[in-house]
């Protein structure tokens, strides 16, 4: 149920496109869900931790692009 001034077609724009598949990984000891962008980059989707400190770490904020190597 939505309660918004935006027209529904604007809110649901791109709804028919499937979201990118995600992977779970540990980034500096913080469990995150990320969307892979090729082999060496991924964009953080969400943090999967219960430790409140992990949500304050700037390097795993959702949207951040993390660089690394899949090992």
């Amino acid at each position, binding site marked *: 149920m939505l309660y918004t001034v935006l027209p529904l077609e604007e809110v649901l724009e791109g709804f028919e496109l499937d979201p990118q598949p995600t992977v779970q990984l540990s980034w500096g000891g913080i469990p995150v869900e990320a969307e892979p962008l090729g082999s060496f980059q991924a964009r953080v989707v969400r943090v999967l931790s219960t430790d409140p*400190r992990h949500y304050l770490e700037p390097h795993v904020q959702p949207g951040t692009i993390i660089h690394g190597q899949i090992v």
Partner: protein
Amino acid sequence: MFEQPQGERAPAKGVPTLQTIKELGQMATPAGPWGEEMPFHCLTIIGQIEGHIVLPPRNKTTKYEHVIPQLVAIEQNPKIKGLLVVLNTVGGDIEAGLAIAEMLTTMTTPVVSLVLGGGHSIGAPIAVAADHSVISATATMTIHPIRLSGLVIGVPQTYEYLDKMQERVIRFIVQHSRVAEPVLREMMFRTGELVRDVGTVLVGAEAVRVGLMDEVGGVSTALTRLAQLAAQREGGPH
């Protein structure tokens, strides 16, 4: 597994927050240090509770296999003095929901639940599983019977099975809250309150009045209770 780079990705100084959000979809966090251990952990239960079936990617889900190991880790960590469970769920898998509820209720680490927005269906047992349950004034909880939507019940066994599932949920809620069984059953099968269904919607204080939840409040209420429970536990025998 990703390897951690050294000293990379430091956000550029002086970049306005709005610009950062626009370009990367990310938000700057308050500056640290965050070195000291926080005494209470926070578990968010949002969207659908996912169990045996992986839901389509459009659904926002709380996954059983994420939550259960975290609860095990919290229970074993003596530095974690309490757990705040924040619920905003539309319900979901009964067995996954009951599993999370059973885990929460059997933890020695103090647990306080806070229902924000909604704690519907299988969210109710999870909310009452905590040592103390808080509901925000505008949050709602829908109590309704378990059913298979869109399916015609063809054989008596199907009904019996649903009835057993129903009993498990009712028993759990009655055992872990102040709500009386006849009251809960009456609310569950009430007609005239939900548009196309039987059941009851409880808003904030009503959930406390019927005895389902303990208190109306917010984040400070929940954290204060958690601190009290943690202090009691520290003082008491182990």
